[in-house]
């Protein structure tokens, strides 16, 4: 028997989509049963109480979680989100109900051993509820009490060789697309770069030293499967320079209908026969394609590498050979100044594992130094950029101005010249001026 009546939530058990209500209920039941005979370290019935407090919100339309207090583990300034219920008497099982963010393996590849170990810890010491995964990429362990934080951390680090992720004014848990592990479009090894930088910057990840949070994300190509351009203060998107490689015979197979376009992504509907002219050539944003005499002709130099033709005919077209990353700075959600996407800072940089990605690290550190110097409290780097200008960032990053930095040049002539750029400097004498110009 359920601890709380949840008539509203119960309505979310029907319908095809996996029901989180059914799942929480199954966890509540499993804990109540306790087949393994565990000595649960937090309230056995916390899933029931979670349903209870949620049902209350469903009926009064307001959240019942309080502002997080400062809880955490020793020596770290992040990785735990403190959370308290504002009706602890009604729902004692979730009176204290903190979240732990656990560092996910890049690309979110797992074996069942790892997961089962983690589940065992969380069974004993937490709510038995998780998010797989949080929006930043962490494994989210949803709800435990303050005393369990250190215990869980200890067991994770000692037993599982895994650490907490980020929160607070820290580097946040970096995330990457699956990249080379299963994707033909990957222009660099997103997972390895993500891992390497995560390890390099463990200190920044765990100990708040920044004006505000800072996120890295790694997309292997312009398709953007981990949304780096929208969701990371520094976004790494794979790109390439050489010409797209075209196998004309396979193009012909697409045109002939032997291979489904876009790997079959549109097969749920009859879109008619594949028409390379309207589907590929006409859609090319740089208009650098033509299809003549059964050949796909590409003016490679004009291609902006949008991926469309490749996505549409993946068996015929392959990314170019000279590969690297474009680096974008400043993406963030709207608060305070309105939404921002990352702005292109580095059109192309090699991703060089052999020197331990030194040039990328130099860049990152230059950027951080600047932001830590110039950024205000709770100011994302995107906001610092807006406030001080793109050129200030580029300059700090050691990057020369490039037309690729802009979609178009400035519309206003409000240029902040510096004294040293102006012949004769700024020192002038009004008396001298008045000799030439009477009042």
């Amino acid at each position, binding site marked *: 028997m359920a601890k709380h009546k949840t008539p509203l939530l119960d309505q979310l058990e029907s319908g095809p989509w996996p029901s989180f209500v059914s799942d929480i209920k199954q*966890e509540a039941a499993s804990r109540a049963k306790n087949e393994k005979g565990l000595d649960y370290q937090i309230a056995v019935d916390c899933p029931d109480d979670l349903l209870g407090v949620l049902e209350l919100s469903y009926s009064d*339309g307001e*959240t019942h979680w309080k502002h997080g207090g400062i809880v955490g583990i020793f020596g770290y300034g992040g990785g735990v989100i403190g959370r308290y219920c504002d009706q602890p008497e009604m729902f004692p099982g979730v009176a204290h109900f903190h979240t732990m963010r656990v560092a996910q393996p890049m690309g979110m590849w797992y074996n069942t051993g790892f997961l089962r170990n983690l*589940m065992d810890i969380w069974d004993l010491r937490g709510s038995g509820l998780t998010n*797989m995964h949080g929006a930043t990429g962490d494994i989210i362990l949803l709800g435990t009490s303050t005393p369990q934080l250190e215990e869980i951390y*200890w067991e994770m*680090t000692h037993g599982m060789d895994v650490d907490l992720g980020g929160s607070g004014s820290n580097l946040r848990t970096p995330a990457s697309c699956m990249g080379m592990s299963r994707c*033909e479009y990957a222009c660099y090894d997103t997972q390895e770069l993500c891992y390497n930088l995560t390890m390099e910057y463990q200190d920044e990840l765990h100990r708040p030293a920044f004006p505000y949070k800072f996120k890295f994300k790694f997309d292997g190509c312009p398709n953007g499967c981990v949304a780096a351009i929208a969701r990371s203060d520094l976004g790494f998107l794979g790109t390439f320079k050489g010409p797209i490689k075209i196998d004309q015979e396979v193009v012909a197979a697409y045109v002939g209908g032997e291979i489904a376009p876009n790997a079959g992504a*549109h097969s*749920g509907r009859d879109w008619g026969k594949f028409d390379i002219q309207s589907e590929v050539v006409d859609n090319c944003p740089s208009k650098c394609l033509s299809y003549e005499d059964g050949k796909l002709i590409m003016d490679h130099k004009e291609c902006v590498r949008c991926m469309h033709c490749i996505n549409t005919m993946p068996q015929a077209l392959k990314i170019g050979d000279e590969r690297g990353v474009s680096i974008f700075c400043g993406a963030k959600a709207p608060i305070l100044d309105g939404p921002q996407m990352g702005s292109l800072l580095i059109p192309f940089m090699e991703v060089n594992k052999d020197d331990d990605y030194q040039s990328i690290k130099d860049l990152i550190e230059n950027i951080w130094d600047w932001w830590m110097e110039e950024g205000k409290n709770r100011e994302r780097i995107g906001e610092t950029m807006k406030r001080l200008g793109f050129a200030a960032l580029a300059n700090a990053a050691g990057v020369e101005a490039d037309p690729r930095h802009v979609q178009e040049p400035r519309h206003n002539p409000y240029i902040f010249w510096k004294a040293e750029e102006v012949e004769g400097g700024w020192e002038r004498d009004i008396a001298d001026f008045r000799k030439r110009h009477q009042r």
Partner: protein
Amino acid sequence: MAFISSGYNPDKPMENRISDIGPRHFSEYLPPVIKKNFGKWDYHEILEPGVLCHTAESGDKVYTVRCATARLMSITHLREICDIADKYCGGHLRFTTRNNVEFIVDDKQVALDLKTFLNDQKFEGGSFKFPVGGTGAGVTNIVHTQGWVHCHTPATDASGTVKATMDVVFDDFTDMKLPAPVRISMACCLNMCGAVHCSDIAILGIHRKPPLIDHEYLDNLCEIPLAIAACPTGAIRPSKIELDGETYKTVAIKEERCMFCGNCYTMCPSLPLADTEGDGIALMVGGKISNRITKPAFSKVVVPFIPNEPPRWPTMTKVLKKILDTYAEDANKYERLGDWANRIGWERFFEKCELEFSSHLIDDFRDPAYYTWRQTTQFKW
């Protein structure tokens, strides 16, 4: 309950402490065929909804079966996923960046059998446990946030709105009949942890009443200057108040300047915004992330407010479904939702989707607002 120690000694927190070890290296978890062909993939095919086949330059083929999760999942559920991975996939699996699970096998028939098996698993309440789909030109899983399940600032629930939405668009998850992928995201307040600012369709919790001020406690619980600095519109100023003869340092809010962002509440628990009637949902559409054909784009607010109607938010899902269906019917192949709206013109978008246009949809936040107004005679009747 007896406290079970992990070995941690609270008196000597540094003793044997391990820290800064980061995540596990992903290579430990790659299935052998993935490891073998790492970085050497040649092309992929979507065999049927939810089933991908990747072919390596070596000729090896690997089959992926993708299925949904509610993201908020129990360890019981996760253990069941592990059981499946052990049975079918040599103990390997992965999660996608949109909270789906991928089971990887190296035989096509096994993949298809697995799909059937997954689609057969149901929760007691009747919903699918592991519905297969989420590939190609369809709707995939919703990136979302905590909502009433675990956060202090939400204006709506996350898990519930997601469940309600996905139930309504379920056939677009299991089939690939849209013009292009449609990415739905959900965030329960303007902090936008779901990063809904670049989504084809975004469900966003919004407040509409200015913060309450808990004068008596404010100065104890908050740094007043931080709360003041937090307000993007400068609506907050320091103030004093008399209550029962005592003077309290507090703040005053110019309510007509408030746009309910909640940033002050983030800094100060004595400024709560939540309100049954004030809170609800805004719908945004037309954002995207990929650079395919067109550039990444921001989502735009097209419905300024829909009341919270738990547990199933019927008005919201109805409007959302209407938008999705109209797009599905009207857009060109490969055309993302926002590109469609741009092509037909937003005036047509509102007409076709039968949405009301109101002054709330006209940007009035700072200088960039100007760039969303119309400076051309080009428009449609």
